């Protein structure tokens, strides 16, 4: 079977049962999977971008196609939410600083940076709650999903974005759990999460501009 | 519904049936439906899209939403007792609705709640039967030539417009009624509601494009009361 193949330099001999070999292999595997998480998150960002491009070009087509588009005054709370989401990006960066830069970096089990991570999580929650408040505010004005094309797009875009933010918070929650439990943290996983998290802020800014723009 | 209710309902029905069938002493309402004003001119129907039907009508047939007769009479008006008579169980006979020459025969079909409705296709082409019910369940089925009749029934009283989706000119009406006291006015506009036990009744006349009119009638015994309905016709 595999014995006919040359073994890789630097790898332990191909003996299936030795625990050392299994552990080394598992390590190599886990690292390659973490490696992949980096490109995985970029690919995911690409796909999500494409979806939102589809949504927003649908918005432009719909806006241009008919005369029933009346512009929506966005609830003021959206701007506060924008600040919140960008603050969450900043606190994420602060946590990176606390975890990977300086002395704390040496101590693998230290819980440094978990405070910043928790704050990021809280700000993320605050953002979603803020979006919820914006929906409540609109619906109290009698603007529901089906009221007008602009309210339809408003709900579709903000809900889709909020769901993606919640997805990011799941990853964030996992990081927090690792950190609080003193578990080792992979830099790759951390960075993948941070790329996604910053992307959410940028995506939101884009959506806000699209929703504000009058054609 | 409890067993008691079922029993009471059955008993009431039994009584009602025995009373209605009790020939002597029962009265009749009869009369005539007319219109005043100018009704819309019936339009001829062009069936060239369906040659197998078109050739069954050497002279083109016309629209049947308003069918007039001599002396300003109105045909195809459903006259029925809308209040005063008890609900009745359906008869065992079925109400037949035929599609022939891309026309509904009859144009207006009156039958009772729960009564078997039998729809058959005598044409060489597929028809589609789409009763646009609002209170009852709406359905939409096609009937290719050579397929068995569609059997159905309705649970609630309703005036249901019927259309064929394949042939847009085919329109008709199902009048689903609660009791057996109904009549569809004939070509001379006359109708007759026999076998009415003494009592106070509300008589309703329904015309598919003019809507409905009602009158209260009291039947004292074995008498025949004549009433008339006059619809306001519109030229457009």
């Amino acid at each position, binding site marked *: 079977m595999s014995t006919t193949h040359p073994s890789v330099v630097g790898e332990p001999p191909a003996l299936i049962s030795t625990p050392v070999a299994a552990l080394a292999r598992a390590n190599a595997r886990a690292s390659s999977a973490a490696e992949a998480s980096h490109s995985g998150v970029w690919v995911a960002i690409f796909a999500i971008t494409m979806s939102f491009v589809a949504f927003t070009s649908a918005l432009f087509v719909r806006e241009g196609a*008919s005369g029933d588009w009346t512009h929506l005054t966005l609830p003021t709370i959206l701007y506060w939410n924008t600040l919140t989401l960008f603050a969450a990006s900043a606190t994420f960066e602060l946590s990176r600083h606390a975890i990977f830069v300086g002395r704390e970096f040496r101590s693998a089990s230290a819980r440094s940076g978990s405070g910043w991570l928790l704050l990021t999580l809280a700000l993320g929650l605050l953002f979603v709650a803020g979006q919820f408040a914006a929906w409540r505010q609109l619906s109290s004005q009698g603007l529901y999903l089906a009221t007008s094309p602009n309210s339809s797009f408003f709900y579709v875009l903000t809900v889709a974005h909020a769901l993606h933010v919640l997805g990011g918070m799941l990853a964030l929650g996992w990081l927090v759990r690792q950190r609080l439990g003193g578990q080792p943290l992979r830099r790759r996983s951390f960075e993948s999460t941070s790329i996604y998290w910053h992307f959410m802020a940028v995506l939101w800014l884009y959506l806000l501009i699209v929703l504000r723009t009058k054609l | 519904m409890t067993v008691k209710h079922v029993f009471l309902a059955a008993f009431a029905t039994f009584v009602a049936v025995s009373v209605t069938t009790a020939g002597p002493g029962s009265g009749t309402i009869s009369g005539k439906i007319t219109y005043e004003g100018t009704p*819309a001119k019936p*339009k*001829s*129907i*062009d*069936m*060239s*899209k*369906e040659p197998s039907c078109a050739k069954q009508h050497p002279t083109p047939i016309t*629209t*049947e*939403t*308003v069918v007039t007769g001599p002396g300003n009479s109105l045909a195809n008006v459903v006259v029925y007792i809308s209040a005063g008579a008890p609900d009745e169980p359906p008869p065992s006979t079925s109400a037949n609705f035929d599609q022939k020459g891309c026309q509904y025969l009859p144009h207006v079909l009156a039958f009772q709640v729960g009564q078997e409705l039998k729809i058959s296709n005598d044409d060489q*082409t*597929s028809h*589609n039967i789409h009763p646009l019910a609002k209170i009852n369940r709406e359905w939409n089925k*096609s009937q290719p030539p050579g397929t068995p009749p569609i059997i159905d029934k309705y649970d609630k009283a309703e005036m249901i*417009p019927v*259309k064929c*989706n*394949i*042939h*847009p*000119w085919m*329109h008709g009406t199902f009048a689903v009624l609660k009791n057996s006291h109904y009549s569809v006015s004939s070509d001379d506009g006359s109708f007759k509601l026999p076998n009415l036990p003494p009592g106070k009744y509300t008589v309703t006349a329904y015309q*598919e*494009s003019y809507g409905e009119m009602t009158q209260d009638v009291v039947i004292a015994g074995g008498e025949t009361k004549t009433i008339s309905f006059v619809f306001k016709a*519109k*030229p*457009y």
Partner: protein
Amino acid sequence: MGKFFAVVLVIIALVSAYPIVTHKYAPPVDISTHGHAIDEQLADTMAEAGLAFLGAQLLLAFFIWKFSGRKEGEKVSAIPSGAKIMVAAAFIFVGTEVLALGVFGQKAWASVYFTAPAADALQVQAQAGQFAFYFRYPGPDGKFGPLHPDKIDEGNANFFGLDPANDVESRDDVVAAEMAIPVNKEIHMLMHAKDVGHSFFIRELRIQQDFVPGLDLSLHFTATKIGKYEIVCTQLCGLGHYNMKAYLNVLSQEDFDKWMKEKIAEQ
């Protein structure tokens, strides 16, 4: 096995081409003023695509004939010119074809879609609905009455949703289930969809265009031959799609005037 494959492939290619070459299955005779351009374009494309089809299939068959039947360890070789000639051939032959068909061959498209209808063209409104076409002529006043979707009453033959009680222009509008037009006269057709997407196709007229709900399109054409032609729907529109059709009745000017007079009398 290889030789058998080659023979079968050659037979398939030739049998496939036979009905095309002999015009066994061809579009019906064109009756429009613009259709000849489409027909020429079709013939050109058929010749080029046909050559490409036969060439590729026969070459494939030839190579399979010649190089199949594997003997163990037999030496293989490559076509001396390598991949470059393939790429060059594709660019030169197919590229020219693309240019020829894509750029110079668009006359037909332009003649249908890039020209404006003549000012004196006869206006006809075509309405597609599940599952019939109806046509409307403006009548003696030359004006179409406005449409009111809520007034549509098919059982009463009000297919367009006209409101003659309130709209004077509607009272003389002629509505018909067939499309009668005078011969050699340009027709400016206004297309309106009542419910879902439909399409308007007359094979002999080389005209096909979708009805898009909410988007009233227009099209113009001239028929050159008297006769009755089928109008069919080519866009999936629901269960009666297969039976959605009407007739185009191309009449002489006198017959058309007579037809119109009868129709006006019927209103």
